[in-house]
């Protein structure tokens, strides 16, 4: 548990001092909003609004892939990854510390970019803000659990920039579909549907277990 908190504190402190990942992810997510807005057919604002939940999650997934790509890059400097591997604790706790730091970072980007989406597409998200935040956190847990594990693998491949999205995206469909269906219904009716929420919760659980156990073998050098 102490290892989890130490890794979490270290990652958040590094991010707080540099803020480079946060800024890059946020600018990227907002850029996706701008591109999608201009890609939408002109004069069909109602149709565009109906697609906002899907577009929102597409922007968040791509921003997450971008941010996770840097998650282990710093650990390569001065061979910090080997030092992490030598920590006298179950490596699953190191994973949880890194993943939790990534979830906090992604959730911050989600909150800020949701405001940009709401303004650009004329949506009033304020009445559902609390439940949308819970959904965003659940989605971020799903994205960052396997994402952190794959980031640790991709960083040690010869084609790291390409490898992470190739590894992540085909496996993120249950997270994406569960989160998009929940968000669509939440924005349209103010209610959270049970089946997609169930899918999201189960997916988060399965991904966390695989990543917690799998991280032992990723750091084993």
């Amino acid at each position: 548990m102490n290892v989890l908190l130490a890794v979490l504190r270290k990652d958040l402190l590094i991010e707080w001092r540099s803020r480079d990942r946060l800024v890059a992810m946020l600018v990227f997510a907002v850029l996706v909003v701008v591109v999608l807005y201009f890609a939408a057919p002109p004069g069909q604002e109602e149709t565009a609004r109906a697609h906002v939940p899907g577009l929102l999650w597409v922007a968040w997934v791509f921003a997450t892939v971008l941010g996770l790509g840097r998650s282990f890059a710093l650990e390569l400097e001065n061979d910090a990854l080997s030092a992490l591997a030598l920590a006298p604790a179950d490596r699953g706790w190191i994973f949880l510390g890194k993943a939790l730091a990534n979830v906090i970072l992604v959730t911050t980007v989600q909150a800020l970019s949701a405001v940009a989406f709401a303004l650009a597409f004329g949506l009033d998200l304020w009445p559902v803000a609390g439940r949308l935040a819970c959904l965003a956190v659940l989605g971020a847990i799903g994205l960052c659990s396997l994402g952190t594990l794959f980031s640790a693998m991709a960083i040690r491949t010869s084609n790291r920039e390409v490898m992470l999205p190739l590894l992540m995206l085909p496996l993120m469909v249950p997270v994406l579909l569960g989160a998009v269906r929940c968000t669509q219904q939440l924005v349209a009716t103010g209610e959270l549907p049970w089946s997609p929420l169930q899918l999201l919760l189960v997916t988060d659980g399965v991904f966390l277990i695989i990543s917690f156990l799998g991280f032992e073998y990723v750091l084993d050098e």
Partner: protein
Amino acid sequence: MSMAPPPQSRWHTATAVVLAVSAVAWIWLVWNAPVDSRQGEIGKILFVHPPAALGAYLGFILTGVGGALYLWRDDERFDHLAAAAAEVGVLFAVVMLLSGPIWAKGTWGKWWSWDLRLTLTLLLFFVYVAYLLLRSFTEGSDRVARFAAIYGIAGVAVIPLNYFAIDLAAGRSIHPENLGGDSLGAGMGWPFAMGLVTATAAFAFLLVRRIELGWLRSERARREALAGARGAS
């Protein structure tokens, strides 16, 4: 310097013989199978497409199983099994993903439909293409085996999740349901069954050959490393 024969070579001849016999029987049965009155000749893709799907899913499941066994027993042979199963599975998946749309265009009038089974299979194909790329972009045989094992296990674990996810999103499927006892027309049962036997035999033959290849590659790498170490000393 001659190398010792790989342990799988005795399977090599057996699978080759079964494949040759079943392939001849399958081609003869398909050639003489009755033509479906509604679909015409294109209906004969039924004797290719489901057998290819069988090979693809066999490959994907064996990849996950091989990876899990490798992590559990730390035995290189299971990694060879997982790598071979992924490559052969992807090959069968390509046949399935090519034959399906050809049949769909002739029967449904369109190449593709984003329904449950098609989307699920396409995603699975991408997972295993990523698996093969991960293997080729990673250096060090031990690291390749560990990374690939974890990704292979994750790929298999996501199959049921993807199933529920796409079921939730896609709605009614237009893909034909699983074939029941009398859902095939008269005279179509034997060529269909022989197609499954041939696909299984082809899968086994290719799997054994690919495992042999993996074994020979790692044996060569071991000998080269040994020769290098001797040269340095």
